[in-house]
């Protein structure tokens, strides 16, 4: 049971990290800093 919890926790963390990537990209929006 604990193994499943930690498996889920691992996937959850990395899913959050991927969403965070897109969150950072969204923060930039359509701005062209160049």
């Amino acid at each position, binding site marked *: 049971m604990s193994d499943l919890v930690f498996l889920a926790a*691992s996937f959850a963390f*990395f899913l959050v990290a991927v969403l965070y990537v897109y969150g*950072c990209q969204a923060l930039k929006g359509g701005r062209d800093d160049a």
Partner: protein
Amino acid sequence: MTPNGWLQIAVFFTLLLLAAKPMGLYMARVYERQKTLLDPVLGPVERLLYRITGVDANAEMGWIEYGAAMLIFSLSTLLLTYAIERLQHAIPLWNPQHLAAVEPYLAWNTAASFTTNTNWQSYVPETTMSYLTQMVGLATHNFWSAATGMALAIAFIRGISRRESKKLGNFWVDLTRGTLWVLLPICLVYSLALVSQGVVQNLKPYDTATLVEPQTVTATGTDGKPVTTTVTTQTIAQGPAASQEAIKMLGTNGGGFFNANSSHPFENPTPLSNMLQMLSIFLIPAGLCITLGKMVGSPGHGWAVYAAMSVLWLAGVATCYWAEAQPNPLLHGVNQRVVQTGAAQSPGGNMEGKEVRFGIANSALFATVTTDASCGAVNAMHDSLMPLGGLVPLSNIHLGEIIFGGVGAGMYGMLIFVILTVFIAGLMVGRTPEYLGKKVQAFDVQMSMLYFLIFPVVILGFSAVAVLSPSFGTSSLSNHGPHGLTQILYAYTSAAGNNGSAFAGLNANTHWYNSTLAITMLAGRFLMIVPMLAVAGNLATKKIAPPSLGTFPVNTPLFTALLVSVIVIVGALTFFPALSLGPILEHLLLRSGISFS
């Protein structure tokens, strides 16, 4: 402090300086896929790996793709290590002590720890991990996490050097080349050098020695009554230590093969092995400064960054050495058997928790180096450092481990500080800040600040909860008062900074600490990498403006001084209140004759 001690510190710095340039130029060639002497041997291996895995080595990635590849790779390796730990009892390979499966909380903590290059160890390796787990689960991870950090630093450097590009390189290629061309060849030679000094390397079961003098030990039994036993034998742990030791130091991982880490005579037997270990911690991070200068076309900038790191390193080691060379005021003159003054047979100062073969100078230097970088290996007990001596390693991690820093992580952390410094310099003169011809704009600063803010949020947040929770937080302390606060603060600082060294007075092998420290390690690694890559990706897209009279030069002593100031101010402002309640208060109370049990 002795002239001999300072001489050894000077020798360390000189050797590092001599090694940095060739190392840095070599890494630039490796990552720019230029010819090297190792190509005839490693080229076919590299091509075979790409063919097996289906990697197109010429396909470059944008920052999102690069970051996603890094995250997928890290998740996969985390799960692999977790599985090996949980199944080690069932795998009929290299488990001569027949060790049981690692408990789930501890297994997850350890898997997160090695994935993030932290190597925080809540376990005793000799009684917990089989040789298979040590080699395949942990030592291999040392290579992967180090190569990942180096790849990310190179991606950031490409972001600075490229113009109007959306690409930062190929993560799989950078990972492969860093492992094959940099880490493996050095570790091969380095392991043999360690073996020559006496570091063990075998797959034998543990030895049993008969004690010359049997020892009588009294412990509390399960019924609460004292139980006295006579110990006549000692178990001497063995194993493939040298191969793990080499990458543990070179990759700034820090996880000891034995529980006593680099103070164990099988892991760090001689003053020469000690010097090699300290040098190998800084070798790649120092070299990366030169790689930076080479790849961005401004060698002077690389040296300016190197100088800033050197100034901060010197300040740390001087403070730690001075603090440890002082006698403990509570022992001074009270117990004449505790020799604390320099004499022919004694180095003087605080020798508690230190190995006699290393002495005070090399223990202070090791403590400083291991926390300047995100290594975390120890050759002395940090919990036994004097309060101001312990303040140095703690502050080094608080500054973000950018004083040479972890392999790759130190460089990209320092470059975020450079962005902030350039931004502040721009504000001071009222011009749009530029870094090597690229405008530093709102998004870059927003992401840089996100990078900086995650660090104190996880450290101070979890520390606050632990300090206020007697049932699961303060119940693990071995000392109370300000020293106890420092123990908790150090644990979360070490985890968030991916350092892995422990103050060692805290029993962290509990469900609370194992799970929250694992989350802290993951957040301190990946939630900081993402905004860093966003800055790199954004910088790569920009044009490079020609230098003008208003351009702030980043290869001068003025830049170095400003960079050091920004690092100190940001670190001091963020953590000074917590430090004042921990080691600083403990120092003042100790001078007044007050200590806590």
